[in-house]
């Protein structure tokens, strides 16, 4: 029975767990329950990826209605791969939350936090697994609403303004996606993604479809914080509770990148989006500006969470750069970076949350001398930071390697050089924090004896991610296999519907 419903369970488990967690009421109960459910979902995601790699596509007809009349869940290597990262991060962040949110969220709101987290996780899984364009919008709404809630939960009042800005920008993004889907439905009469791909007829109603494409691309770009539509991200990540930032930074924007990939490659077709519309140039230019502008911004911030938030926008630039290279290797580099960046940023934000837990501030001055007082936390920060820079034996190196390879394949020497140049800026912004932690003395005025290591329940998920950073940096077989088969699948599948169309004519 489990086998049959494997594709639906990663959505359904957190979806029904959310109201149950609310009913449970007690903080510790809902924590244990949410963590358990998330761990189960992660296990199912692992099995799904195995199945997808072995068998190709798994299709699940919700309600027993065949597509395009009913809603179809469609699992392939690409979304199973991202789902594995999302569900693993969700589980680790939930483990980490128990102690972390005690300092940052009022006790009466802990249950609401776990409920919102489960809703967000359910929404993200839904976005990933669904094969229906409108169903995707519904799950986008669930995850977005839960996200705004989680950002606003911090006791810092500034989180409210950050959440409000995020709400306004996010709602515009979601509305744009809805308008785009509506235009597509009008000119094709279907909502199923594969069916859309077959029925999109550029010659017949090109202007309506291209408008739909434009609205979807802009809407998704807001959601994934593509420069210059990233303005909501730094403040939201800075003022949200640390556990929330760790979860959002490693999953929410990545899922939006996946949505962009899905729409470009499965629905509209790479030939149309990149070939005749020339969107690869726009994306490449924006990605490169994002990498440099936001990496530079990261070097001049004093709040470490803001530093990492700007770094996230820059890292999203790398993912988009990979997509914009229009090759299987480039797409694979983008997909690998989605997975790897989740590992790095999750660990980094968890370490910063640990510092807040003990010191009560995340300003760069608060990090002074922490190398001695919180050795394990700062060691975790150092390794994850080296991974962001792209030092060999970490996952960051793997991402950069494939990205540079993809650029060189197409003789884009400048792009390859720019990728390496961006890493130099990462050296500066990570280096500043490490310098404060290891080479500056803690000012005497502050009571230094109280600052010690955080509880093991916070350290364990942090170090799990750090070890994953090293493990997947050394043994790349799982990530490269999944990402390359996903990328090849997306590219090759992309030609099939077009071929069918030609035959039909």
């Amino acid at each position, binding site marked *: 029975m489990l086998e049959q419903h494997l594709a639906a369970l990663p959505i359904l488990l957190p979806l029904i767990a959310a109201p149950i967690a609310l009913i449970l009421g007690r903080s510790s109960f809902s924590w244990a329950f949410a963590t358990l459910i998330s761990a189960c979902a992660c296990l199912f995601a692992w099995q799904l990826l195995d199945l997808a790699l072995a068998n190709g596509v798994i299709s*699940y007809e919700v309600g027993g209605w065949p597509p395009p009349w009913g809603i179809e869940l469609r699992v392939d290597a690409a979304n199973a791969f991202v789902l594995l990262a999302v569900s693993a991060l969700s589980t680790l962040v939930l483990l980490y939350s128990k102690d972390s949110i005690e300092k940052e969220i009022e006790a009466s709101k802990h249950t609401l936090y776990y409920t919102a987290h489960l809703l967000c996780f359910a929404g993200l899984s839904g976005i990933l697994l669904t094969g229906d364009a409108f169903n995707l919008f519904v799950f986008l709404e669930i995850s977005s609403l839960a996200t705004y809630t989680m950002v606003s939960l911090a006791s810092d009042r500034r989180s409210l303004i950050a959440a409000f800005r995020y709400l306004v920008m996010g709602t515009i993004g979601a509305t744009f996606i809805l308008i785009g889907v509506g235009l597509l439905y009008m000119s094709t009469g279907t909502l199923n993604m594969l069916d859309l791909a077959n029925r999109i007829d550029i010659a017949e109603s090109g202007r*309506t479809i291209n408008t739909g494409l434009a609205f979807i691309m802009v809407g998704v770009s807001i959601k994934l914080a593509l420069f210059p539509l990233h303005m909501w991200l730094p403040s939201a990540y800075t003022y949200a509770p640390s556990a929330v930032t760790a979860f959002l930074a490693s999953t929410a924007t990545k899922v939006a990148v996946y949505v962009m990939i899905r729409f470009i490659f499965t629905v509209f077709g790479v030939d149309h989006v990149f070939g005749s519309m020339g969107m690869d140039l726009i994306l490449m230019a924006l990605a490169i500006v994002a990498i440099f502008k936001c990496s530079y911004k990261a070097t001049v911030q004093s709040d470490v969470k803001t530093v990492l938030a700007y770094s996230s926008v820059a890292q999203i630039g790398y993912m988009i750069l990979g997509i914009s290279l229009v090759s299987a290797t480039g797409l694979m580099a983008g997909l690998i970076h989605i997975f790897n960046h989740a590992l790095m940023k999750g660990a980094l934000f968890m370490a910063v949350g640990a510092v807040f837990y003990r010191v009560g501030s995340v300003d760069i001055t608060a990090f002074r001398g922490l190398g001695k007082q919180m050795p394990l936390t700062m060691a975790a920060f150092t390794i994850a930071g080296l991974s962001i820079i792209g030092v060999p034996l970490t996952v960051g190196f793997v991402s950069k390697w494939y990205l540079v390879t993809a650029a060189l394949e197409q003789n884009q020497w400048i792009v390859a050089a720019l990728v390496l140049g961006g890493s130099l800026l990462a050296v500066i912004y990570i280096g500043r924090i490490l310098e404060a932690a290891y080479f500056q003395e803690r000012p005497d005025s502050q009571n230094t004896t109280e600052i010690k290591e955080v509880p093991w329940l916070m350290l364990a998920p942090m170090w799990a991610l750090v070890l994953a950073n090293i493990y997947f940096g050394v043994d790349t077989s799982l990530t490269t296999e999944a990402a390359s088969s996903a990328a090849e699948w997306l590219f090759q599948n992309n030609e099939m519907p077009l071929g069918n169309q030609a035959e039909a004519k």
Partner: protein
Amino acid sequence: MSDFIDLVLLAMLALTGLRIIFLKDLFAVVMLFGIYSFLTALIFINLDAVDVAFTEAAVGAGISSVLMLGTLALTGREEKESSHSSILPLIVVFITGAALIYGTLDMEPFGNPDNPIHKHVAPRYIEDSPKEIGLPNMVTSVLASYRGFDTLGEVVVVFAALIAVLSLLGVPKEGQEKAPASGLKSHQVLRVVAKLIISPIILFALYVQFHGDFGPGGGFQAGVIAAAALILYALVFGLPNAVAVIGPRFLKFMAAAGVLLYASVGFFSMYKGGNFLDYNKLAADPVAGQHYGILIIELGVGITVFAVMLNIYYAFGNQVERSNIQ
């Protein structure tokens, strides 16, 4: 004739929209939003989309006006002068508008039966749904059965809205600090009229709930109408009296229970060997199974929507009373 009505309604819609932009009095803006929703509902009726019109009137014009007024009671009714420059937003809006107009250039002719939208999935919904699902109202068939997963998602969206409001405004406390008697004590006419119409409203809500299979209606509208009855009671007789009837803690359970009821139908069909939400498996006869399934999920929708709307109103009302005391 229908085109002419559409034009008039759209012109009125545009005028209302423009007025909303330039008006500084937020109380009037809320009223105009209500008018805007009613106009939209009329347009939907003119398009023969009665179900959508019903929802728009109940949610857009009804509940959201009450909730916005609740917000105004907390924030004050004058709009503050914005310090931001409005040039960039104006440019963005113009570009968006221009893009939308560009998109209409290749649009299929309005209402043409040969449009792709009428040719692909719709014929099966129209021709086969009476046989496959057995309901006269095709909208309910599509919403509750063919695309039942979307509707489950929408119910969860409503539930997520409750989580958001509770985390911002806090869970209203019951039975503590007796608030000073609120409500409209001196308005005898209102009190008598309210007493007269509250029970018919609830009865109507039940009718809408169970009539959704045959005509316009269903859980969303019914939940909103039932919530409106209790909100009216709270407005006229005071929040504490309404809380004594149904408390916020109980409503929180109800909201969760509605989602679980909906999902449990799906899990039961999984247990019976079908896919999630496959109502055919609920009974020996597939059409009867469809009927049971839709009845129960609509009930789940109604319960959650009712509980969420009323609880959100409580959360707002509680804030207003607390700020009045201070």
